[in-house]
């Protein structure tokens, strides 16, 4: 048997790009890592493998806890982790969803070509930066009263539609049509709402950004056509989440679990994996609150997208409709969803809380939960790269249901710590180099953020996507490359 020694943890090769950490001790199932040996060399350097092993201790974990190819160390659960926990006798874990509930990305198409915006990049990046709130304390696009926050939590993008920040078609190109069933605003604390109400329609900071990109390659012409993508076309990618509302919701429930389900918590090797037993009142409450925060994040990205349409209107002096600026799709990265999956050798159907933390749902063609617009070709998956590298559009692959509970990677994955990045890079240099060498125009609230997000701190997104494609969990459709980037 081929093995890989990852600093004391031995992984057994199951097949190409599939590695297993066998079940031992208190592990309830084996852990799996989907990676090439090149990616494993990077993954073994932080605590990702220890964290995915810890995750196998969660009650009700089914088949395997799984690392996607872009995995890196997080807190509790690794980033790039997928864990399916039985919804009847397992649990739901706020820590395994993460703080930024429904952090995710959406891509908007345009009918502009790269030629049409060359020479206008600085004007465009300045206008985007001036009009899209980012950073700390930058406010939001709307500042609704607390009643409106409750509406947003309950109705998601439908609220945006009613209030002039969306069109009908936007709903049809978003997972769950932009509204999670079972969202319960009453289960979101007043503190969380207080934090969120000034931040609706804002990027935040860290690795969140808005990027204007050009399509450089279409690998699958048929699927590319279904997604409305062609070479040289301009698209816009938006990466952000549920802001302070989601962060506070996660912490509120971590503390409640600590107080009410200490027995379960004491069984877990990392307190950040805190989970509420399925069927408990707290599990129900958290699921209602998390779904509400998911709606909030969708509205956040929707407001930013709609504002971006207005910015393009001003810069290019045309209506956004005439530039065909339509949502391609919106995917969530930090989420737990009740889904039915076929598990075990006898093909039993079970309802599971599928936790995807830094992982993307990637349902294949024909799956009933893929929006009608894409059901024949498979769900779009958007994989952002760093601001100096390409991003990818994939489609849910036909092996994803068997291998990963219908999931794939979510990005390039970090390689270098933020502190180290700031020692190695200076924001001003990074910004200048990107402009001079690659014609990428970057504007940020903070030079430190540019240094921390420098292209060199990320893994090779090409390799992450290659592995996803070869495994058949997310197939390559198109590649894009940055033109303008704004961040906090």
């Amino acid at each position, binding site marked *: 048997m081929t093995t890989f020694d990852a600093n004391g943890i031995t992984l057994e090769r199951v097949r190409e790009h599939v590695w297993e950490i066998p079940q031992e001790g208190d592990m309830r199932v084996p852990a799996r890592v989907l990676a090439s040996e090149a990616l494993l060399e990077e993954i073994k350097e*932080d605590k990702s493998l220890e964290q995915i092993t810890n995750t196998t201790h969660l009650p009700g974990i089914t088949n395997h806890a799984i690392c996607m190819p872009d995995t*890196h*160390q*997080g*807190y*509790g659960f690794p*980033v790039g982790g997928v864990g399916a926990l039985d919804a009847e006798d397992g649990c739901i874990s706020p*820590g395994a969803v*993460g*703080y*930024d509930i429904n952090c995710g990305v959406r891509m908007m198409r345009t009918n502009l070509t790269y030629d049409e915006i060359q020479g206008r990049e600085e004007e465009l990046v300045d206008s985007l930066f001036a009009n899209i709130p980012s*950073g*700390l*304390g930058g406010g939001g696009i709307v500042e609704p009263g607390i009643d409106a926050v409750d509406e947003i939590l309950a109705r998601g993008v439908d609220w945006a539609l009613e209030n002039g920040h969306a069109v009908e078609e936007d709903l049809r190109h978003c997972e769950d049509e932009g509204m999670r069933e079972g969202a319960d605003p009453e289960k979101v604390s007043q*503190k969380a709402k*207080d*934090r969120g109400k*000034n*931040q609706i329609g804002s990027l*935040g*900071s*860290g690795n969140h950004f808005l990027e204007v990109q050009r399509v450089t390659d279409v690998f699958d012409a048929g699927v590319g056509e279904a997604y409305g993508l062609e070479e040289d076309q301009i698209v816009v990618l938006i990466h952000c989440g549920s802001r*302070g509302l989601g*962060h*506070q919701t*996660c*912490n509120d429930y*971590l*503390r409640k679990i*600590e*107080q009410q389900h*200490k027995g379960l918590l004491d069984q877990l090797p*990392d*307190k*950040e994996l*805190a989970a509420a037993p399925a069927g408990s009142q707290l599990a129900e409450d958290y699921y209602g609150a998390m779904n509400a925060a998911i709606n909030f994040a969708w509205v956040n990205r929707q407001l930013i997208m709609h504002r971006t349409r207005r910015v393009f209107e001003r810069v290019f002096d045309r209506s956004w409709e005439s530039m065909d600026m339509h949502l391609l799709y919106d995917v969530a990265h930090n989420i737990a969803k009740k889904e039915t999956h076929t598990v075990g050798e006898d093909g039993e159907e079970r309802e599971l809380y599928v936790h995807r933390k830094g992982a993307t749902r990637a349902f294949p063609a024909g799956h009933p939960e893929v929006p009608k617009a894409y059901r024949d070709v498979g769900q779009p998956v958007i994989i952002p790269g760093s601001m100096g590298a390409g991003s990818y559009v994939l489609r849910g692959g036909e092996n994803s249901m068997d291998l990963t509970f219908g999931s794939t990677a979510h990005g390039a994955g*970090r*390689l*270098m*710590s*933020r*502190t*180290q990045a700031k020692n190695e890079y200076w924001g001003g240099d990074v910004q200048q180099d990107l402009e001079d060498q690659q014609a990428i125009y970057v504007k940020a*609230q*903070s*030079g*430190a*953020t540019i240094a921390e997000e420098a292209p060199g701190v990320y893994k090779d997104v090409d390799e992450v996507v290659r592995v996803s494609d070869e495994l058949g969990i997310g197939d390559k459709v198109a590649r894009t490359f940055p033109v303008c980037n704004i961040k*906090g």
Partner: protein
Amino acid sequence: MGFELRDHTADIAVSATGDSLESVFAAVADGLAAASCDEIPAETGDRFSLSVTAERREALLFDYLDELIYLRDTRAELPADHRVDSIAGPASADGSSADGKPDDWHLEASARGVPLAAVDAREVKAVTYSEMRLERVGKGEPGSWEAYVVFDV
């Protein structure tokens, strides 16, 4: 005495020491401010007070840092120059009791609220329990308390 920012692949960790529970709590909070902003202006902003209660000592540290992040967002100020005036625990317990009452531990603190508009700050999303340590390593001498906290960025 004080704090250091430590490497973490995606996030930021603060390692802090103090000669009392109060001073190590304040040092972690100063680390949180430093993780948010490289240069905090010395004179800007007014001090404000806060108090926090929790059922255990570690939970008190968690809730204190969570409250500072909440106050940052709702006051639109970066809390800096932290002072923890008092921490009181249950008279008989050492603070590690598993089933403490919600108000067993109590903290009184203050901070200077630097308007966010006056600083080039970035967002620390949340305090985490991951790898959190709060330990007494000696009695009374400098550095006799140690804490390690990972923050989500």
